[in-house]
């Protein structure tokens, strides 16, 4: 009985969460404007309730999937009785309705986390932050309830079995990719809420940035991992060995990442030096707006991409309105409040301030480049000026030189001093690193390939130039204080170091795999051998196997190098019965310096041979390893002492505030 009513319980829980979000959006804000502590204190319990009820709704949906309740339309569309339980569980966010519910639940969780970890904020600040988060979630829950409820029933005659999950999504990578990506998207709402709360309160000092920084870092770390997982999934699941396609949906996640990276750096300037104040606020608004834009692009069906499934246009309109309201309202507030802010600081061109300014400019130019390439076809199409697509050459032609420029400044930035420094001092700090980096860049292509290559040298030069100067600080401290010296640097410093090293590692990966990969499309039959990139691939077996919801052709490929057996690979071609869809299951042998990659294409007319794609991809793992290091850097910076010892300062702030209120 209870099991049958689960979808209704879920729906009801969602409505309750909406009601709470509305209260959370209105009452604490009104309280902060009229200075009523009672009203402001509504914020925290509402945030808790909202998170609780959305969790209940989500669990109801997940249980529906586990118990195979095909009377629910969403479950019937995305699952099948033969789908294994773990994919039934990940199918909860395999389609549109479930993934927006996940979005909303994660937003509520971020709100919950803010109410726990930032509970020592001044009362009115906390009330405003939570009110902004409440508004966003109220909008999203309205959207879900109006256009995309996952609990819609197919009554009175439910289907006997479901239509199954899209085979592309039946993959372990896809179990965690969407939650990570959404954690990142949604997480930027916290920085946004802090920025708006600071604007409303007119308190645009460095304090809000110190509160907002850990949240921004965390969201950024999640987004980095989410993007990396998506790229990794595309690499092995789509079957072509590419790792970034400049697909509009990938761009949609890259844009908030670029803006978010700029935001992190700009927050640093505001916190440490009090500069860039209004700029930081604008960036927080832009970053979250881009997250919403990403959601709109993916969820509205305006794009032709992997993620574009048959879609309902009213949803797009709704999100577009939501996006318009958010951007419009926050920019209006910004326009009224920001001119009051002054950042009267001067700084020289050879200073960390200037380097971070350049970093911001470059990142934003990259972001605008991606934005233009993504939206231009959509704009032309909606104006009826023709259907075009913008291909990877456009993005590569612009992003690659911009990354080189960014890398050059990334090398200089960490060794500069705030405010001002002499040219001679700067050269003294950098000349050795420059020589070392240059030597590495010139030597490596020779050592690896036996021939010199300009693009490889350039890529490695940038990577080395980012990493080598980072060693200066710990080495100086070690010289002065002995082995314990480097421990004197803060965790947020090491977070920065780790993040920059991650960037360099990714650059190495991109450079090597773009310049040294080998790929071949071949016909292969039993006993046939081909040689790719110094490895010999022989097909030794070809059989048919059965999985829970598919049949598959499975080949065994023996890989040898010289006389040594490297590995046996088992690529498959699966045919999913319910959806009547074929899927390539690639076989990989991965390693730090190279991946071997075999994908089965299609059976050929003679009935014995297959079209196969065989690739050797050097250093491709470094791409994603770099992203993980960046994320780890972001998390490490959050663990910095000054965020943990803040409670005392907060306490002092609050007493002062109470005194002011009384007087």
């Amino acid at each position, binding site marked *: 009985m209870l099991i049958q009513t689960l979808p209704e319980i879920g729906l009801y829980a969602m409505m309750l969460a909406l009601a709470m979000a509305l209260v959370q959006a209105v009452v604490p804000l009104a309280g902060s404007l009229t200075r009523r502590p009672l009203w402001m204190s509504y914020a925290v319990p509402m945030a808790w309730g909202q998170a609780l009820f959305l969790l209940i709704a989500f669990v109801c949906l997940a249980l529906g999937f586990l118990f195979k309740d095909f009377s629910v339309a969403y479950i019937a569309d995305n699952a099948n009785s033969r789908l294994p339980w773990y994919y039934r569980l990940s199918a909860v966010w395999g389609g549109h309705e479930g993934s927006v519910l996940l979005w909303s639940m994660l937003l509520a969780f971020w709100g919950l986390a803010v109410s726990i970890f930032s509970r020592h904020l001044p009362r009115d600040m906390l009330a405003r932050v939570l009110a902004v988060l409440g508004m966003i979630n109220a909008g999203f829950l309205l959207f879900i309830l109006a256009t995309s409820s996952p609990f819609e029933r197919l009554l009175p005659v439910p289907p006997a079995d479901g239509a199954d999950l899209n085979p592309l999504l039946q993959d372990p990578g896809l179990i965690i990719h969407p939650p990570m990506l959404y954690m990142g998207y949604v997480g930027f709402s916290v920085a946004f809420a802090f920025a708006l709360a600071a604007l409303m309160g007119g308190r645009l000092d460095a304090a809000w940035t110190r509160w907002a920084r850990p949240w921004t870092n965390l969201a950024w770390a999640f987004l980095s991992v989410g993007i990396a997982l998506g790229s990794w999934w595309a690499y092995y699941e789509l079957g072509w060995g590419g790792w970034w396609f400049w697909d509009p949906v990938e761009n949609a996640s890259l844009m908030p990442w670029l803006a978010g990276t700029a935001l992190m750096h700009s927050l640093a300037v505001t916190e440490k030096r009090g500069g860039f104040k209004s700029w930081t606020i604008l960036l927080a608004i832009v970053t979250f707006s881009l997250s919403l834009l990403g959601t709109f692009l993916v969820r509205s069906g305006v794009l032709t991409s992997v993620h574009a499934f048959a879609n309902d246009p009213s949803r797009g309109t709704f999100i577009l309105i939501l996006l318009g309201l958010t951007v419009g309202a926050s920019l209006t507030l910004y326009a009224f409040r920001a001119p009051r802010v002054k950042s009267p600081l001067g700084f020289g061109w050879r200073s960390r301030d200037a380097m971070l300014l350049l970093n911001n400019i470059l990142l934003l130019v990259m972001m605008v480049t991606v934005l233009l390439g993504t939206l231009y076809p959509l704009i032309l199409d909606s104006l009826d000026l023709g259907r075009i697509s913008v291909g990877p050459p456009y993005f590569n032609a612009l992003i690659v030189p911009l990354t080189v420029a960014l890398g050059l400044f990334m090398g200089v930035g960490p060794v500069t001093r705030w405010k001002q420094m002499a040219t001679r001092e700067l050269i003294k700090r950098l000349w050795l690193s420059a020589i070392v980096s240059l030597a590495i860049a010139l030597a490596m292509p020779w050592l690896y390939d036996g021939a010199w290559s300009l693009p490889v040298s350039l890529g490695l030069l940038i990577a080395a130039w980012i990493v080598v100067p980072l060693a200066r600080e710990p080495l100086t401290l070690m010289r002065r204080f002995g082995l314990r010296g480097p421990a004197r640097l803060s965790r947020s410093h090491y977070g920065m170091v780790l993040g920059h090293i991650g960037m360099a590692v990714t650059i190495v990966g991109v450079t090597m795999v773009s310049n040294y990969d080998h790929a071949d499309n071949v016909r292969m039959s039993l006993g046939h051998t081909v040689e790719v990139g110094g490895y010999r691939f022989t097909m030794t077996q070809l059989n048919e196997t059965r999985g829970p919801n598919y049949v598959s052709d499975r080949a065994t490929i023996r890989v040898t190098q010289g006389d040594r057996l490297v590995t046996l690979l088992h690529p498959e071609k699966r045919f999913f019965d319910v959806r009547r869809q074929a*899927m390539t299951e690639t076989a990989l042998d991965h390693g730090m310096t190279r991946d071997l990659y075999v994908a089965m294409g299609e059976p050929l007319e003679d009935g014995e041979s297959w079209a196969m794609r065989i690739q050797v991809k050097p250093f491709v793992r470094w791409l994603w390893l770099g992203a993980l290091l960046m994320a780890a850097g972001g998390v490490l910076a959050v663990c910095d002492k000054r965020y943990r010892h803040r409670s005392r300062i907060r306490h002092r702030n609050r007493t002062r505030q109470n005194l002011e209120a009384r007087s």
Partner: protein
Amino acid sequence: MKAHRRQRLIILLVLVALAGVAVGLTLYALRANMNLFYSPTQISSGEAPQGRSLRAGGVVRNDSVHRDQDTLDVTFTVTDFEADVPVHYRGILPDLFREGQGVVIVGTLDERGWLQASEVLAKHDENYMPPEVDGALKAAEARRAIPSETAAVADSRASKTL
């Protein structure tokens, strides 16, 4: 001018100059790398340029897919049910490529009127028709409908009076 004012002015000028360069480069790159979409009807009537990268799309005609016996060369025909365009491709076709299915092709048109494909895209959801292809098919259908429109109107009237 005060020092920080002058600095601000320099920042502003640099910003404007950088933005100008960026926009110029971007537009140039966009122009050079844009792929226009053509329907089979447009291609067969000679509207599409030769030797320049373009996108085309339509439905793969039944029984038109032929694989070479020794290589990975494959040929097939895409159609909007009004005009056909022959396509040549070397490589592995995507999983969802099937006769009767909508596909998008990136490639160049050679002087014989063949589309030399560098990429064949079939979408991952089988109920999903790429919007360009959908548009091309609808346009072809609409053109076919025009001559018989008057008849259809007459028909509907007739059925009403019945």
